[in-house]
């Protein structure tokens, strides 16, 4: 069994696990990708359009993690996974510690691996990545 609580209600975000993560996994995050309204708007304008590129080419990081890594809004970070790496500007977001979000599209897909665990579905939500300040 994992030695961390797997369920966390909104009120109990802090705890020993976070301290452990600070020490052992400072730069490691779980990447989730997903739809945004701007992504859909960009898609209608055309996947080559500036709207689409702008809508899919940034990373959202929680304020707590931004402070911990010393990153400011708009700053470029390098994100690596086993499958690839990208550079992307940071947008602050209301995300729990250890989680980052990139809108679905070519930027996120460079980081998502092709392992599907026999289901056909890659880890579009749940890809392990490392974030480094540039």
């Amino acid at each position, binding site marked *: 069994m994992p030695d961390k609580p797997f369920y966390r209600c909104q009120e109990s975000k802090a705890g020993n696990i976070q301290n452990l993560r600070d020490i052992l996994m400072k730069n490691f995050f779980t990447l989730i990708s997903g739809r945004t*309204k701007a992504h859909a708007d960009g898609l209608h304008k055309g996947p080559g359009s500036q709207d689409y590129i702008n809508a899919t080419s940034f990373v959202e990081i929680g304020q707590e993690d931004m402070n911990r890594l010393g990153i400011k809004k708009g700053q470029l970070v390098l994100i690596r996974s086993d499958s690839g790496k990208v550079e992307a500007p940071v947008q602050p977001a209301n*995300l729990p510690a250890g989680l980052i979000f990139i809108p679905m599209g070519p930027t996120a897909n460079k980081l998502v691996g092709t392992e599907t665990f026999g289901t*056909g579905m890659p880890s579009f939500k749940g890809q392990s990545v490392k974030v480094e300040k540039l």
Partner: protein
Amino acid sequence: MSTTMENVICKFCGCLCDDIIVEVEDNRILKTKRACSNGRGMFLDYDPSFQKPLIDGKQVEWDEAVSVCADILNKADSPLIYGLSSTSTEAQRKAVELADLLGAVIDSTSSVCHFPTVLAFQRTGEVTCTLGEVKNRADLLIFWGCNPMVSHIRHFTRYSAKAKGTLTPGGRKDRTIVVVDVRETPSSKTADMFLQIDSGTDYEVLTTLRALVQEKELEPGAGHIVSEELKELARMMKTCNYGVVFFGMGLTMTSGRSYNVSELFTLAAELNRFNRFSVMPMRGHGNVAGADNVLTWLSGYPSAVSFARGFPQIGPGEFTSVDMLARHEADAALIIASDPMAHFPHGAVEHLRHIPFILMAPMTNCSTKTAKVFLPTACCGIDVPGTAYRMDNVPLRLRAVLASEKPTDEEILSRIIKEVIK
């Protein structure tokens, strides 16, 4: 002079809203009413101009393009047919016929959205309902790992949270809304209860909920943590009159995948001991549910179907598109109404760059430049009519709002089939 068409169906997402008003002038869509921003973009940004097919970026006549497509597919040892979710069921039938003829693998975009849900259907069964039942009866709505305020914008107003129905005349006042997600979203902000769980822990939370519903003793550290919020949710699930869980990629794309969905289906089935409870996947593309239906009618399986041995076989992880491309097993591809270059992981896209592939789509997309052949066909639901399945598997007839000269997907697939047989 402009003409106005009422009750047009928008096929952008699985809601298939059928009350859209479209104003057309000089064969261009000028204005829409009632459509959400996603649907509005689909109608207003559509380019209806007739284009010729492209081979290696050069314009050719349709006859030549069809002949080259047949040649590519005939020469391939392991062709892949992928996409289907934004075209009509009539075209989907033709695509299955072509796959059978070629001994190809055929896979829809379900592969990278709700294919784990399909696997869970097969394993557990599904307690389901229509969106009409949700609108008229449901007093508890749970949205798990989905964000309708962004991806299915009119879902709340037409079918669920805010819809006024026979037994829910007060609309939002008569319903309790719960959102379960790993992050705060526009949808979670509208909920009566927001359960924020750790990423990748859906299975454990669902198992805990099942135990709570059955009033089982739970030991700390045995794979569940009992919180007051979960106890309250279990109580709400048991005491509501009619509950429905809508779920999205938050369950199918995270660790556990189909097992998360199976656990949810089992929970819903067990709740029927107390009241009426259903589950429904939030299907993304307008006719992705149709692709599952058509493939199932014709082959017995909903996606990832191989005809290579002369009879249909399903192979999750084997005949699914990302796996086939990542393992370099496909040596040609026909992409229908989809954009894998924008939506597949980099490792799968790289192989697609190195094999001849045909793209059949109404407008250019990220895959157009890489395609060996681009076939600019008519857009179903704008240029031509066709059938599409709503997310609750109700088939609806899409209308044409423009007068188009473009050939349909169905016509071009029929022509390719004739050429392949030659």
